[in-house]
Every structure is written in C-alpha cells, then in structure tokens.
C-alpha cells in the first residue's frame, strides 16, 4: 500500500506542479500551451546543471543541495524560455495557441541538437551515478541502516522519497495563497477575467500577464526537472511523455482552481501508476496480484487516465469556469 501511494506521488507531483504553472498563466489571460516545451527545456537544463556541479567536484553527500540549486536554476531557465511566449502573446498580440505550439516544437529540437552536440547520443544522463543514489531520501540519509523501516506512515514520508514531493506541497500552498490572498494575485486574476476593467482601475495588464507567464515558466521548468529526476532517472531525451499536455488537461479538469487541480493530479497519478505497475501491484498485501489476474490488457490500464478525463470533461463541461479573457490579446485601444 505504501508502495502504491509512493508510486502515485511520483506521477502526481510533476503533474501537479505543471498544472499549477498552467493556472498562473491562464488566470492572467494567456493560454500556455507551451507547458510541454518549457518542461522539456527545464528537464534538459536541470540535467546540464547537475552535470556541471558533478564536474565541479561536488559529491553524493551534497546531493540534496545540488538538487535544490539545479531545481531553482531550471526554473529560471523556464522563465527565460516562457518569455518567448509572453513576448509574442502580450506585446505582439499574436495567436497564443500558435506561439505555444512553436515553443513546443522549438524545445525538443534545441534540446536534441545540444544533446547530440554534447554527448553524441540521443539521451543525456548524469555525469556519474543515478538519481536514486544521489537525490533520494532513504533511511541511510538519516544515518539508519539500509533496510530500516519507519512504520507505514513514516515510510510514506521519509523512506525512498524525493524532496520534490515536499517542494510540490509548498508550491501548492504558495500558489493558492498568492492567487487568492495577495493583492498581486487578485489583480492577476482580474486580468484574466476582465482586463479592460482592471486597466481602468490602474492595474498594468501587460505587467500582470508577464508575471503570470513568468511564474508559469518557473513552475513548468521546476516540473520538468522533477519529471526528469523522479521518473526518468535524471536523463533528458527531448521528451517528457506528454506530461505538459496532461497537466493542461488536469488544469481544465480541476476547473482552474488549485485545490481541484491537486485532487485531479492525484487521481491522474493513481491511474498512471496503476498502468505502470499493475502486474506487480499487491494492494492488500496478501500475495495475490489482483489486477494482473483479472486478465485485462495492459493497454486498457494505460488508456484509462485519458478516457476518464474525456468522460469527466463531458459531464462537467456545463459547470466549467474558464477565465473569461483567456486567449484574447489585450489591446488598450479596445473597450
């Protein structure tokens, strides 16, 4: 059970971070279709930074520090990359879907080009070791022997987890507070609903949208790094398995509110996790692999998250609350 929950978090954490990234941009009125591209770029830069630190002689003992610094740096790279979208969407008033698509194509192309230039193959990993050895929190991190158990609850939080799970929770709390309890956050949301009214009250719509896209870029970069570390063993190959698009779906699924998104990404994570581990999944610990013995094709499990999203969207479409000004470039001259 603990294993299942931990696996679920592995899939849910990057989804949640990136879906929250989407909320920041869309609440300010910019459709960020480029989440996938920013994730790919963030993941690549994260691997590059880890390699740089390893090359500079940092060792396993400083693993958590390396991870934190690389995480923040890949977030900053995410901001820089997302500015391409912000510039075209806000200043040039270009079609945001096309701008996002362009970034989604640019990121893998750039990343693959540089990976080939750096390592002459199609995947780039860490300079030495693996993600689990360097960045995972294990009993030995606290000085306990290898097979030590903290009990079911303690194991869930401290045994074989990555720090990013906690960072994700912090991000969730911060984004919720930012959007609903701070002046800037409420102003940002007003730009996504009625930018003309916001402007008449002295709010700089362009600045707010830049802030929204920038925040979104930071979080998507962090999400990309998290994806690379937790599910891809700190490698980058110009692909994040469609997680950026999935996050977009989770965001719509969660009706653009952080709490619903958290729930949606955990649900999604659960199904992704079942798809990946169904054959060795022992839910109640009696030695029977129930899902495997049902004899359902693995492809059904793999399709489930997508089918469920479609079904849920179909049933909740009537109560969907899209930010009203989303996707419409703000033009001062228009009333």
């Amino acid at each position: 059970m603990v294993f299942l929950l931990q696996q679920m978090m592995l899939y849910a954490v990057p989804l949640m971070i990136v879906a929250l990234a989407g909320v920041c941009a869309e609440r300010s009125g910019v459709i960020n279709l480029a989440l996938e591209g920013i994730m790919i770029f963030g993941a690549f830069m994260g691997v590059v930074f880890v390699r740089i630190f390893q090359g500079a002689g940092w060792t396993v003992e400083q693993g958590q520090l390396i991870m934190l610094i690389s995480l923040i740096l890949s977030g900053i790279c995410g901001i820089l990359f997302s500015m391409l979208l912000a510039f075209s969407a806000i200043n040039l008033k270009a079609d945001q879907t096309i701008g996002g698509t362009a970034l989604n194509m640019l990121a893998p192309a750039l990343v693959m080009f540089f990976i080939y230039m750096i390592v002459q193959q199609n995947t780039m990993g860490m300079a030495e070791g693996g993600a689990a050895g360097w960045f995972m929190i294990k009993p030995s991190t606290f000085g306990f022997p290898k097979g030590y158990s903290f009990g079911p609850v303690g194991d869930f939080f401290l045994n074989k987890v990555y720090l990013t799970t906690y960072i994700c929770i912090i991000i969730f709390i911060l984004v919720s507070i930012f959007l609903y309890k701070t002046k800037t956050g409420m102003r940002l949301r007003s730009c996504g609903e009625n930018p003309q009214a916001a402007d008449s009250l002295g709010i700089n719509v362009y600045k707010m949208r830049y802030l929204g896209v920038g925040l979104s870029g930071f979080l998507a970069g962090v999400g990309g790094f998290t994806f690379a570390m937790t599910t891809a063993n700190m490698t980058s190959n110009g692909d994040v398995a469609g997680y950026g698009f999935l996050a977009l779906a989770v965001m719509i699924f969660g009706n653009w509110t952080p709490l619903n998104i958290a729930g949606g990404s955990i649900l999604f994570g659960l199904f992704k996790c079942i798809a990946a581990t169904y054959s060795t999944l022992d839910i109640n610990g009696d030695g029977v692999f129930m899902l495997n013995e049902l004899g359902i094709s693995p492809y059904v499990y793999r399709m489930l998250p997508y089918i469920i999203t479609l079904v849920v969207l179909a049933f909740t479409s009537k109560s969907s609350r899209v930010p009203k000004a989303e996707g419409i470039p703000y033009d001062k001259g228009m009333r």
Partner: protein
Amino acid sequence: MPKKDPVTGKLKWYKSEGAVSVYSALISILIGMAVGSIIVIIVGMTKSNISTSGVWDGIRLVFLGVFSTGRDSAGQLSFGFNGVNIGNMLFRAVPLIMTGLSVAIAFKTGLFNIGASGQYLMGTMGTLSVGLWLGWTGCPKGIAWLLAFLVGVLLGGLWGAIPGIFKAYLNINEVITCIMTNWIAANLVTWWFDAHESFKNAAEGGKVGYIIPLKNVGVVTPKLLMDKIFAGSQANGGFWIAILIAVAMWIMMTKTTFGYELRACGANRHAAKYAGINDKRNIILSMAIAGALAAAGASLYFLSGNTEFYWSTYQKLPAEGFNGIPVALLAANHPIGVVFSGIFMSMLNISGLQLKYLTAYNEYIADIIIAVIVYLSAFSMLFKTVLSKKIKHDHGNVNAEPEGTEDEDAPEENPKEIASAETEEGGQK
C-alpha cells in the same frame, strides 16, 4: 499607396492578399534559415572539432541540402541535381502535405486540430491491417489497394469526429480532446498489433518490432512515372494523389456551399448559426474531414510498400501529426499552398539528414528552423493583417470615385469581415 490597374480597378496581382501571404511566408522562411545558420556558426565556433570550412559546409547544407551530391574525391562538398534526394523529398512530403491539409481545413473552420497524430495512427492501423489481410487472401491488388486506403481514411475520419462531437455538443476545447484521443489512439493501435501476431514481421531477423511491409504482399501504390524521373528514390504515385486531394480540398473550400459554410463557422460560429447554418454538423464534419486527411497521409505513406511501422507506439506519437501544424501555418491554411510548404518542410528534413551524414552537425537543426518559422508565423499573421488592411483602406477610396467598377473584394471575403467584427464586439460582453 498600392497601384491599381486603371482598366479593371483591381489590385495588381503582386499586391493581392494571396501575394502578401506568400511574402510573409518567405520572410518567415528566410529568418528561420538565418537563425539556423547563426546556430551553426555559434556552435562551430565553440566546438574545437569543427573548423571554419566545416561551418561553411554546414551553412551551405542548411540552404541547399537537397541539391547535395555528397563529397567529391578532394573531400569538398559538391552540389548538383540529385534525383535520389529530390525523389525522397517528394516522397516524404506526402504525409506532411496530407496532415498539413488536415490542420488547414480544421483551422478554416476555427478548430485547432492537434490530434492529427492520433488520426494518422488510426489510418496506419486500418491501411496496414486491411492491406496485409487482403494481400494474403489473394484479392486483386488494385481492389486491395483501394480498400486498404479507404478503410484507413474512414478510421481516421471517425477518430477525428470524436473531438468534433465534444466541441459541437459539449463545447469542450478541441485541443484537450485531441490530446486525449491521440494517446488513446496510440494505445489502441499498439494493443491491436500486439494482439495480432500474424501482422508482425517475424520472418526477417530483428524485425519483430515492425509490421510486415506492404510490398511483401504486393499491395503498393503504382509509381506513375516517379521512378523514371527520380531513379533510385522512394518517390511514387502517392505524390500525385496528394496533389489531387489538395486541389479537391481547394475546390471544396472555395467553390462549394459546404466549404462556404465551413468558413462561415470558422469566422464566427454564432453568426453562422444565426444565418441558418448548422454549426454543430459543420464542426463535426470539418473534424471528420481533417481526420480523414491525416489518415490518408498515413495510408499513402505506408502503401508505398517499403516503409515499416514500429508498432509499439504507445509512448510515442508520430511526428508527422505535429509537423502538419507548421505546414498549414506556413501556407496560411491555403490548400494549394500546403503542397508547397509540405515540400519545403520535407526539403528541410533532407537537408538535416545531409548535415548529419556529411558534417559534424546533426539533423535537429532542421527542426529548430521549423520551430522558428512557426514562431514567426504567429507574427506574420499580424504583419499580414496590417498590410492587407492598408491595401483595403486605400482601395476603398478608389471605390468612392466614379470610375470605381464592380466590387473587387472577392464576395466570399465579406461575411468574414462582418463576422470577425462581431467577434470583436462579442468578446467585450
């Protein structure tokens, strides 16, 4: 101020709206290639193993890769007519043209078809399965070809209709449903081939991950002279079929009532409905046609016979689906323009391969150029509206004068303008 012909009062052809589209596309292409060259230069300067002549080789291949004939005995790049390269370029252009048409038709109806990958996969599944099965039963090859093609197209059309139905009846953004159906299709196709051992290429060593190519059962597209012109390449009659389909789409969109209704829905769905057009039906049909076109791309690609399909595709979507987007954008969603932009994109791919084989660079430089072009095409639409507005404005003044003859604005453009004006107002509510 644009000059007008004194007799007809029409704009000179090089000032027309179509010409402006071509200019902005050409500007995007040039900037994209310049960015590619700059990356080639910067990387060449920072990498010690690339010399100045290596950089120059790289730049020449970015622009002229398709005319490359390899290296001569002195180790210098040589250029000339390369039938293999040009033939392969046309061969690879076929799926790009078809997915480009798919995206363009959906765009014209105001829908963003990001689901071409899934539709492409469904077409692949239909064509390969039916083609192999009919090939084994000894059905006449011509009929087998036709049925394989039609079943692939039909499956793609049905698959494309799903996001259309969601959009029409539940108003769910087609982008999200397309992404979901893409991944569902990837799993379905893998599941189908995983469950049917007989389709897997077990006869050839190490090829069990691939489906048996259709040339083994003889269900292949006839060459239609392509093998005479471009000897040694993979080019076949599929290219002519793609052009025929593009022309048919152009006629459908511009010369028929149905095409007019689709475009009216794209300009403003609510205005179209008010004018008595069945918007729901048109949205679903448009997505179904888009799906059928994408699937036709897959069918033509695999009916060429010697292409092999890696069936375990549930983690990866085919790139052809996404590459249809830049093809359509570069052509400003014009069905005939799609043919040229599809060939251009395919040319970039060939250039990329030449870079990989002949220099220290790799083929991803072509993808970077394509991405830059897409990014710029977002601007070029802006550039185009500014330019054509200016032309129209000047135009209006002439009309006010007595010599002004019949209305030069093509009649089909008028409702679009009215409709888009309504959208702008509607957005403010």
